């Protein structure tokens, strides 16, 4: 199978293109700000930035319907912004404040929003894959025609539980899209050094799960692939695999010097393949937007990110009593 590329003249409206541009730019600017706040010591611990991979979540969110679910690993800021979670709540969780989505008790890797059907934010590589299939299991059981997007990386794709899950998802026709965000490095180990066969999208074949490889630097190609996968799931045909080739510009986490790849390699991706620049070119060359239009979007995003940063600094640290809350609940959950 060849890499799917969107057609030269995409069948997409100006408004859609502008929305993709805006949503991707929000993630990038947010992540740059998060990196800055980390540098200032306002964000602690681990912080994994999504810069470079924006087209993956923005393209797939465009393929999702209201009520569809998503779950991912620890590089999760982009997913939360793309599904409509409040940047203020996300940034305040990064700074460990009471205004954060988990009231400061989760951190960068552990945020959730039942309101937006975002089920985390998981720190154990591969563990969110059966969890995502479990959400899909519930949807099938409750017959509500929902689809779950289960995101993981090329590194997680080597975990055994991923294949345990592929087997059961196929066996039980679970409506789950397995999204492998292949950014080509599992922390510092390149795919060539960790993976016996490079085409991860083939790995469902043993279970009868179809898979496509997608250009993850092209938001339109991602959206198109997402539409196809979602239609497959919603038709009751079981799971689908999308291996989305992408690239992270920053290190694995903030403390990663990224010596395992050359500066030229990163620079080349940025200059030649950048997903945001690609949409920007489409907007300008197709006369869907003027430079001034885009400047206005830039300005709006800058304001949102700046407000989120301010909120994340001004929000108080959680009260000490919070240490002892949310260990058990008395409240029965509502059926989703």
């Amino acid at each position, binding site marked *: 199978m060849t890499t799917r590329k969107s057609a030269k003249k995409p069948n997409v409206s100006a408004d859609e293109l502008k929305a993709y541009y805006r949503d991707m730019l929000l993630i990038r600017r947010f992540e*740059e*700000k998060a990196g*800055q706040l980390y*540098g*200032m*010591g*306002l964000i*602690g611990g*681990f912080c994994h930035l999504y810069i470079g991979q924006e087209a993956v979540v923005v393209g797939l969110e465009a393929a999702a319907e209201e009520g569809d*679910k998503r779950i991912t690993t620890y590089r999760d800021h982009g997913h939360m912004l793309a599904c409509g979670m409040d940047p203020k709540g996300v940034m305040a969780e990064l700074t460990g404040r009471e205004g*954060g*989505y*988990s009231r400061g*008790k*989760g951190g960068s890797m*552990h*945020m*959730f929003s*039942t309101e937006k059907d975002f089920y*985390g934010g*998981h*720190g*154990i590589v591969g*563990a969110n*894959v*059966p*969890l*995502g*299939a*479990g*959400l*899909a*299991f*519930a*949807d099938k*059981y*409750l017959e509500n025609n929902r689809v779950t997007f289960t995101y993981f990386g090329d590194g997680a794709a080597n975990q055994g539980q991923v294949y*345990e*899950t592929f*087997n*059961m998802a196929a*066996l039980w026709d679970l409506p789950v899209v397995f999204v492998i965000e292949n950014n080509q490095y599992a922390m510092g180990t390149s795919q060539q050094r960790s993976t016996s066969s490079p085409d991860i999208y083939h790995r469902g074949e043993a279970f009868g799960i179809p898979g496509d490889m997608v250009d993850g630097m092209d938001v339109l190609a991602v959206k198109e692939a997402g539409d196809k996968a979602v239609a497959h799931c919603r038709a009751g045909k079981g799971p689908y695999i999308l291996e989305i080739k992408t690239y992270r510009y*920053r290190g694995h986490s*903030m*403390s990663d*010097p*990224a*010596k395992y790849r050359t*500066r030229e390699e990163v620079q080349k991706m940025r200059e030649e393949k950048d997903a945001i620049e690609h949409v920007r070119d489409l907007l300008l060359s197709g006369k869907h937007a003027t430079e001034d239009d885009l400047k206005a979007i830039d300005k709006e995003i800058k304001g949102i990110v700046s407000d989120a940063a301010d909120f994340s*600094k001004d929000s108080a640290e959680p009260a000490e009593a919070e240490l*002892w*809350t*949310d*260990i058990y*609940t008395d409240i*029965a*959950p*509502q*059926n*989703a």
Partner: protein
Amino acid sequence: MATEILMPALSPTMEEGTLAKWLVKEGDEVSSGDIIAEIETDKATMEFEAVDEGTIGKILIEEGAEGVKVNTPIAVLLEEGESADDIDSATSNAPAPQADTASESDAADSAPKAAPATAKAPDAPKPDQSPDWPEGTETKKQTVREAINAAIAEEMRGDQTVFIMGEEVAEYEGAYKITQGLLDEFGAKRVIDTPITEHGFAGIGVGASWGGLRPIVEFMTWNFAMQAIDQIINSAAKTLYMSGGQMGSPIVFRGPNGAAARVGAQHSQDYAAWYAQVPGLKVVQPYSAADAKGLLKSAIRDPNPVVFLENEILYGKSFEVPVLDDFTIPFGKARIARDGSDVTIVSFGIGMTYALEAAEKLAEDGIDAEVIDLRTLRPMDHDTVIASVMKTNRCVTVEEGWPVASIGNHISAVLMERAFDYLDAPVINCTGKDVPMPYAANLEKLALTSTDEVIEAVRKVTYR
């Protein structure tokens, strides 16, 4: 407005670093993402990127400078239209927040909520010792197996979101026949045979609990659940906390636990102490059929994840079970299985077999033992144990698990803290031996605790 570029923290532990190299000079234009400097942290040399776009107005720290504290201004960035003359106005505006880096000692300090030592011995607690069912209720003989089966069936009848999954639970009707008849009654949608894939189906169960269902995940034995322990602890137990209370995991993990008979080291482990240590889990280890039924029904209804530790040897044992439409037992309430005044024997699960046998034999010698069945290990009913020890002044604990960091160790610590002045002898923990389980019949017997060991321990603490 001109902005200061600050010395960044580039690792969770960095406090200062070396500005190894500038990759830009004054007057250079930069845009966000451009690498502007190389900085040596405590761990590595890192590339430092610009966040904002603008012109490098002034470099404040020369390259090669060592020991530059985090958040020290290292350069000034000018926006479009600004000149280097604007620099002075910027320098005092930038905030230099001091991060609260939580040290390990902070975390350790906050963990135990220890009460300060007081001179006065504490009053005896007044635990709830109401009976589990009203006096006069009809009872019938039932095995633990039948009681567990009935609990599952009753809860599945009452709530369509309850389902059971596991290896051989449906068509085979359970490796230990716990799920007999369930497939017939509830169908394949709700009684689900899984492949042999504990890690995977435990995770699917937890995900399903987040999606609005109430899964019962059967492990053929708890030994196999070690394949799945990450999902039980990291996913089921911690998510409510990590989500700030948004998402609980209403799920029951159940199956036989501990030694059976002659099945060797990998199939003979008691996980009571392991799971009882985990905040976010509830942990049950019943002994009698009535407890198994009442507690399992409570477990299935509980909005939190419950680890339910059964025992293969007890499955076939019969007990009186109340004939009631809806019989439940609350968590955190121990049962006084035998009243006594000379010594308190605390146990749970199959350990109760030894505890009760020992008590009967000791009675023949005039030693009157009180026997407490903890029933739930998290939450644990400390009060009933303490009230009893304040009366008897002596305590022996009994369990089949290993001795290090055992449930008995925990109870000893609680008694030290809350009933020290009442103890007339050191607490003795009867446990399994500190060895993997051997296969040979004689060695296996030695590896487990026994009625004789309990009797000997009681004689020691009563000096008789």
